[in-house]
């Protein structure tokens, strides 16, 4: 874990610095608006460390959700991690011990996109390079969350409606996925099945049927979709 590797890794993390500080602050402010102090924000960013899941967790905390529904919600929202992991098996194969543990623990969307595309300089140990990239990113996220929590306590204006940041986050990711893909069937399945289940089961009970329905619909469409390159 040389200084050299830190120096090499830092510039690549700058875009994540901007994004994580701002989104982390949004999370901290949102959590504060539900009565949870910056300490909660900091601890959640240290332990959970998964952006969109933490936004949903604010909702789960403030609505007093049951633990089982929290488990299921976390499973579906974070299911994509399984596939980040699968594609990082080779890259992280040579790493051992605590460093490997941390590399896997800290594999967020942004960190994944950085380490996946990264080409560490020849004179730098790749494992150390990946480690610093991962650690710097989490530092930005934790700092942003705590800052947001603190800011939320002293904000001189009404924060009613700040919850919309979560809706906006998902809408923006959805739009981004839509724009970068030619096939929109999975996106439409997600919206369609969810709306149907919302109408059938109501706002408090629709999410589990929706998850099951989406997985079933996608398996039903497997033969049609499997050959598509950019799902």
């Amino acid at each position, binding site marked *: 874990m040389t200084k050299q590797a830190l120096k090499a890794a830092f510039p690549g993390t700058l875009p994540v610095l901007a994004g994580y500080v701002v989104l982390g602050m949004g999370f901290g402010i949102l959590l504060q608006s539900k009565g949870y102090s910056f300490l909660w924000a900091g601890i959640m960013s240290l332990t959970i*460390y998964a952006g*969109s899941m933490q936004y949903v967790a604010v909702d789960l905390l403030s609505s007093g959700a049951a633990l089982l529904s929290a488990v299921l919600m*976390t499973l579906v929202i974070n299911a*994509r991690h399984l*596939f980040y992991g699968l594609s990082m098996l080779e890259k992280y194969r040579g790493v051992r011990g605590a460093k490997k543990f941390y590399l896997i623990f800290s594999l967020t969307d942004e960190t994944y996109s950085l380490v996946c595309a990264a080409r560490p300089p020849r004179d730098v140990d790749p494992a150390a390079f990946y480690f610093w990239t991962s650690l710097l990113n989490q530092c930005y996220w934790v700092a942003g969350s705590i800052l947001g929590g603190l800011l939320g306590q002293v904000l001189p204006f009404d924060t009613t409606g700040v919850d919309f940041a979560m*809706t906006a*986050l998902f*809408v923006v990711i959805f739009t981004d996925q839509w724009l970068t893909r030619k096939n929109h069937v999975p996106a439409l399945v997600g919206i369609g099945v969810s709306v149907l289940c919302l109408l059938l089961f109501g706002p408090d009970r629709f999410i589990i049927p*929706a998850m099951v329905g989406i997985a079933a619909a*996608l398996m039903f469409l497997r033969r049609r979709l499997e050959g598509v390159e950019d799902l």
Partner: protein
Amino acid sequence: MSEFFRSAALVAVVTAVTMLTRFLPFLFFGGKRQPPKAVLYLGRALPCAIMGMLVIYCLRNVTLLVPPHGIPELAGILLAVVLHIWKRNTLLSIGGSTVVYMLLVQLVF
């Protein structure tokens, strides 16, 4: 105090399950075993579908038949989408639409 423990338990559960989703591939396929084809397929198809589900999840308590008929939500979403198609800047799209939504629910509706 029980409120504190309930919240702490929830954070612990979310942490544990998140770690599970990150560690499972390395535990299962760290050796030479190949993941099943269905798993790989769902891995590619699920992310877009789940994001659609999460958008609906955020809107689950919007009442279309009662004022304000979801107008602030619709306006915020349209603004987020338009900003994003136009500038492709995540922070601008989220920040801009959230501020407009807050102004709408606080001052207009």
